[in-house]
């Protein structure tokens, strides 16, 4: 190879010398050309090199000449030696080869060149070397790489960006006005937010894709303005999406006179929170309770309008000049400092009843004060004190009223001698007053929650069990009516006691029965008294009757011993009998009263009335009750009238009858009329007998009313006025 190379190199040199002499002026061009130039022999040794290429390589020209490429630029040899040899072998030039290598001039920096390699021929056409032209494109390559990297970074950042980002290019009408935009770029978030999924938006018309933009008075004009003038803007707008409204922040900036960048961010969460906060704020403002917030040193930061009114504060500024203790009555203010706020800061909460003091009027307002600590959500450290306070003046007043009424009620219940039990709907005793405890022998705790009947009314006096369903008190509740009656209750000591009771249902507002009030009165004494009274009246009656019997016996025996006219015995005896019968009537009602109808019937009994009936009498009148004196007097009077009628009047004949009628008089008394019919013609008596005197004077005197006895020819009549004093209003 060196045999061949020697003559080749010397020939090339000689040739070049000749050429350079011929083209002497071209040397200067060669050496100062702005592109690197060199000539390599067939061994790839530098034969010639210009300054530009020597500079690129970083070595002086002389350091190249006669040396192999491999020796001068080792990095270059690896990539280009094979190609250079092929040029030498084939004679085919290589144009625009891209070569990269580090050079001695700048070790560590990869340099890039575009190189043309052309074979050099001698006169015989034999290849004697390679002409190399080198264009340094390192800066260009580096710029391209930087651009590629920047773009990749941009795309990556856009893909990672949670906000939607688009680049829109303006589409102008012939007039130059912006008529539409087309998408040039959209990131993933934009696809999602625009509901485009993987659909490629690039090149699509914004107005076609989103027709709503055409009519949107805010967005499209802003886009157009931005691209025309460069005026960026940011606007928050709601979009309806899948039936729900979402909020976006839409920010635009101009990129160049044809493009804008649009950044849109979903701010629904923030907006929702904002609305929530506004709603809370309006609740707080319109609340009818006091709501306030202070710092930990009790300096008030906020009080709602209700609270300001309650405390007599005019403005938010006035509120911020106050401390919590300012809101309270002096005693409570001290408690706030020493007790309440320490508790809030320590335990987190304090609730209790305190009194606010209106700072303008000084009026005290009873409140329920509920204060709690608000901790910073991030650090957990105490941040504020919040206060909720309710005005309880009205509740206090109604409580006071209730207490008063309760006091009155318990005064009544605890002082009445009437025993009062209260039962719930299950007949369980829920209350008993002091009298009930004394009467039953039980105390409320012993009896409470038990079926009252089973405690105080479980047996009959004869020992038989008394089931609840037979109890009239229970029945009264079931029938939903008030019930009264008399029963025997069982004392705690086992003894029975007679009581009069009234059971009244307790109703709720709907009228349903929720319990029973049972009033019970001890009637043992009453029972004894009435028994004693009955015995006394019986005894009295017995004695009266015995006296009358004695009188009658005396008269009877006296008249036996001294015979007199036959009528005398009868006259005396019948009157004694009449007196006795009227006593019977009164005895029957314990000497309280006697019904007028019975007085009439009883008086006329000896004259043919049996079983309240007789054909000879017509008796008619309303039920009226006479006091004892009036009953006795009237009874004797009627006996005299009947005796007279039997002797001389209507009853002395076969068919005569007597009508006895009475009716209420105007004065509230009674007018009674005795009228005989069908008797013999009547002649007024020549002389007033004992009988007529007893009627006209005795009866009139006893009744204190007028009595008129008339002897009309058709029959005797007698009008008897019974003034109201003689009557009893009701049957006792």
């Amino acid at each position, binding site marked *: 190879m060196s045999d061949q190379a020697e003559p080749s190199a010397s020939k090339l040199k000689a040739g070049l010398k000749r050429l350079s002499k011929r083209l002497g002026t071209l040397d200067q061009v060669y050496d100062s050309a702005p592109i690197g130039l060199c000539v390599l022999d067939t061994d790839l040794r530098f034969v010639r090199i210009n300054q530009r290429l020597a500079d690129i390589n970083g070595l002086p020209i002389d350091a190249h000449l006669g040396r192999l490429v491999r020796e001068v630029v080792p990095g270059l040899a690896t990539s280009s030696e094979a190609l250079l040899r092929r040029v030498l072998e084939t004679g085919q030039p290589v144009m625009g080869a891209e070569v990269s290598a580090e050079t001695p001039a700048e070790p560590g920096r990869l340099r890039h060149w575009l190189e043309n390699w052309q074979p050099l021929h001698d006169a015989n056409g034999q290849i004697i070397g390679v002409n190399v032209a080198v264009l340094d494109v390192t800066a260009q390559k580096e710029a391209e790489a930087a651009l590629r990297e920047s773009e990749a970074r941009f795309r990556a950042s856009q893909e990672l960006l949670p906000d939607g980002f688009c680049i829109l290019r303006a589409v102008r009408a012939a007039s130059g006005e912006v008529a539409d935009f087309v998408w040039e770029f959209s990131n993933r978030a934009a696809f999602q937010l625009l509901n485009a999924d993987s659909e490629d938006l690039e090149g699509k018309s914004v107005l076609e894709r989103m027709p709503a933009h055409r009519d949107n008075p805010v967005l499209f004009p802003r886009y157009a303005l931005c691209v025309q003038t460069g005026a960026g803007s940011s606007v928050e707008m709601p979009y309806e999406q899948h039936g729900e409204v979402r909020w976006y922040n839409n920010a635009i900036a101009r990129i160049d006179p044809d493009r804008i960048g649009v950044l849109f961010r979903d701010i629904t969460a923030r907006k929702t929170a904002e609305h929530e906060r506004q709603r809370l704020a309006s609740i707080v403002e319109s609340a009818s309770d006091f709501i306030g917030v202070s710092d930990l040193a009790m300096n008030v930061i906020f009080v709602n309008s209700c609270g300001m009114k309650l405390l007599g504060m005019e403005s938010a500024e006035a509120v911020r000049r106050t401390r919590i203790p300012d809101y309270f009555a002096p005693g409570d203010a001290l408690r706030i400092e020493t007790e309440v706020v320490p508790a809030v800061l320590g335990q987190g909460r304090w609730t209790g009843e305190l009194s606010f003091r209106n700072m303008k009027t000084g009026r005290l307002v009873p409140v329920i004060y509920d204060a709690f600590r608000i901790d910073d959500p991030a650090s957990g450290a105490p941040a504020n004190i919040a206060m909720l306070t309710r005005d309880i003046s009205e509740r206090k007043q109604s409580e006071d009223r209730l207490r008063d009424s309760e006091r009155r009620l318990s005064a009544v219940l605890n002082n009445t001698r009437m025993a009062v039990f209260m039962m719930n709907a299950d007949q369980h005793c829920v209350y008993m007053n002091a009298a009930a405890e004394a009467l039953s022998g039980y105390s409320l705790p012993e009896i409470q929650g038990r079926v009252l009947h089973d405690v105080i009314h479980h047996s009959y006096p004869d020992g038989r069990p008394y089931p609840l369903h037979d109890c009239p008190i229970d029945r009264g509740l079931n029938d939903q009516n008030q019930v009264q009656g008399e029963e025997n209750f069982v004392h705690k000591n086992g003894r029975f006691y007679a009581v009069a009771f009234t059971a009244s249902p307790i109703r709720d507002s709907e009228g349903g029965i929720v319990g029973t009030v049972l009033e019970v009165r001890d009637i043992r004494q009453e029972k004894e008294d009435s028994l004693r009274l009955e015995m006394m009246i019986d005894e009295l009656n*017995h004695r009266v*009757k*015995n006296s009358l019997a004695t009188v009658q*016996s005396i008269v009877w*025996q006296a008249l036996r011993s001294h015979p007199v006219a036959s009528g005398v015995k009868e006259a005396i005896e019948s009157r*004694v009998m009449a007196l006795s019968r009227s006593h*019977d009537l009164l005895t029957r009602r314990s000497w309280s009263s006697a019904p007028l109808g019975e007085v009439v019937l009883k008086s006329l009994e000896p004259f043919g009335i049996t079983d309240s009936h007789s054909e000879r009498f017509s008796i008619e009148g309303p039920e009226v009750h006479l006091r004892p004196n009036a009953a006795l007097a009237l009874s004797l009077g009627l006996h005299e009238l009947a005796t007279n009628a039997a002797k001389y009047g209507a009853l002395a004949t076969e068919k005569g009858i007597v009508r006895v009628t009475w009716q209420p008089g105007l004065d509230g008394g009674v007018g009674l009329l005795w009228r005989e019919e069908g008797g013999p013609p009547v002649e007024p008596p020549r002389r007033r007998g004992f009988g007529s005197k007893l009627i006209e004077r005795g009866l009139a005197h006893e009744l204190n009313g007028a009595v008129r006895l008339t002897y009309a020819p058709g029959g005797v009549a007698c009008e008897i006025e019974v003034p109201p004093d003689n009557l009893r209003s009701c049957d006792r």
Partner: protein
Amino acid sequence: MSADILPGRRILVVEDEMMVVMMIEQLLEEAGCTVTAAGRLEQALVHAQAERFDAALLDVNLNGEWSYPVGDVLAARGIPFVFATGYGVDGLPGDYPDVPVMAKPFKDHELLDTLRALLGGSGAFERDPR
């Protein structure tokens, strides 16, 4: 009317009011009866248990004591009797639904008629309607 059945009858009269006893004695003796009178309970019981009677008149209340034990003895011995009472016929205590009752004071013929009825004389006895 057949012959009076009263003459010869032995009548026990239990009554504590002396005047009334005297009247009844005279009345019954005039009617031909033999009268034994007792004013106190023990006395009446002795007579009722020991002697023979055709009929008896018992005042219910003997100075505060009930005469029912005498009634029991008479009933056991089958001697008919009538109660006399100042209490009135309505409120008569005791358990003698078939024994007639006369309210004091009573008339002389009332007593005689009642005794005749008791002795089964003039037709069946009808209880005083009162």
